[in-house]
C-alpha cells in the first residue's frame, strides 16, 4: 500500500481515539478529504463559535502539502483574521513553502488554532477583496507572499 493511504489510516485511527481540545473530527469518509471543526475559546474574538476546516490530500501526501481551508456553512462562519480571506483561504507558511512531511493533520490544526488564539486584530487581510475576486477555488493553487510574520 502506498505511503499516503498508510499515513492517513494511521492518522485517522489516532484521531478517532481523540483529538486535542477544541478539535472535532466531523468526517473522513474517504481518505482523500477530512472535515474538522475547530474552536478557540481562549480568545474573545472567536469564543463560542465553531469553524470548519477542510483538508484535501493528494496521492503525494505527506510529501506534498494538503489543501487546507475554512469552509463556510450556516452555523460555521469564516473566522476574521488578518491572514484568513473571506473565502476561507489561509495564508500560513506551513501550508505552502514551509510544509514538510513530518507535519500532519493534527499539527496543522494546532498551528491554525494557535494562529487564531494569538490574534487581536478583528480584520480581514488588506487585499481581501481583490484576492477573493480572482482567487482559485483551492487555496493551494495560490502563491501567497508571506509578508508579515508578526500576526
Amino acid at each position, binding site marked *: 500500500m502506498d*505511503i499516503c493511504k*498508510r*499515513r492517513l489510516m494511521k*492518522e485517522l485511527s489516532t484521531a478517532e481515539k481523540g483529538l486535542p481540545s477544541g478539535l472535532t473530527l466531523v468526517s473522513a469518509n474517504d481518505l482523500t478529504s477530512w472535515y474538522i471543526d475547530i474552536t478557540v475559546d481562549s480568545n474573545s474574538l472567536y469564543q463560542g463559535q465553531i469553524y470548519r476546516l477542510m483538508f484535501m490530500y493528494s496521492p503525494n501526501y*505527506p510529501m506534498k502539502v494538503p489543501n487546507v481551508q475554512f469552509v463556510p456553512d450556516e452555523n460555521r462562519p469564516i473566522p476574521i483574521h488578518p491572514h484568513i480571506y473571506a473565502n476561507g483561504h489561509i495564508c500560513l507558511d506551513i501550508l505552502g513553502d514551509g510544509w*514538510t512531511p513530518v507535519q*500532519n493533520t493534527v499539527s496543522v490544526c494546532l498551528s491554525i488554532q494557535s494562529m487564531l488564539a494569538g490574534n487581536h486584530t478583528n480584520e480581514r487581510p488588506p487585499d481581501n477583496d481583490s484576492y477573493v475576486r480572482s482567487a482559485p477555488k483551492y487555496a493551494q493553487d495560490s502563491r501567497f507572499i508571506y509578508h508579515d510574520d508578526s500576526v
Partner: protein
Amino acid sequence: MKVRIKEWNAVSIWHWNVSEDEVCGICRVHFDGTCPSCKYPGDDCPIIIGKCNHSFHMHCLLKWLELETSRGLCPMCRQPFQTLGEDEVITT
C-alpha cells in the same frame, strides 16, 4: 551428570540503534518496521541519521529530498540535511 549437546538453535533479535518507541516522522512507522515501499526490515530498508540527529527511513527521506519543494532540508528542523558519517554514529 554429564550432558552431551547434540544440537542447538540460536535465536536473536535486532533493532536499530535508536530509541525503541521512535517512529519515522515521515511515514509514522516504527524504525524497526519498513518504509511503506519495502517488505523486509533491516538492511533492505535502512534508517538514515542526519548531522542534526534526526532520523528517518532512508527511502522516506530520499522521496522527500528528491522533491524541489524540500530544498534539501531536514523535515524536522529545516536545516540542510547532511548524513551523519558512519564513524560519527554514536553507539550505545
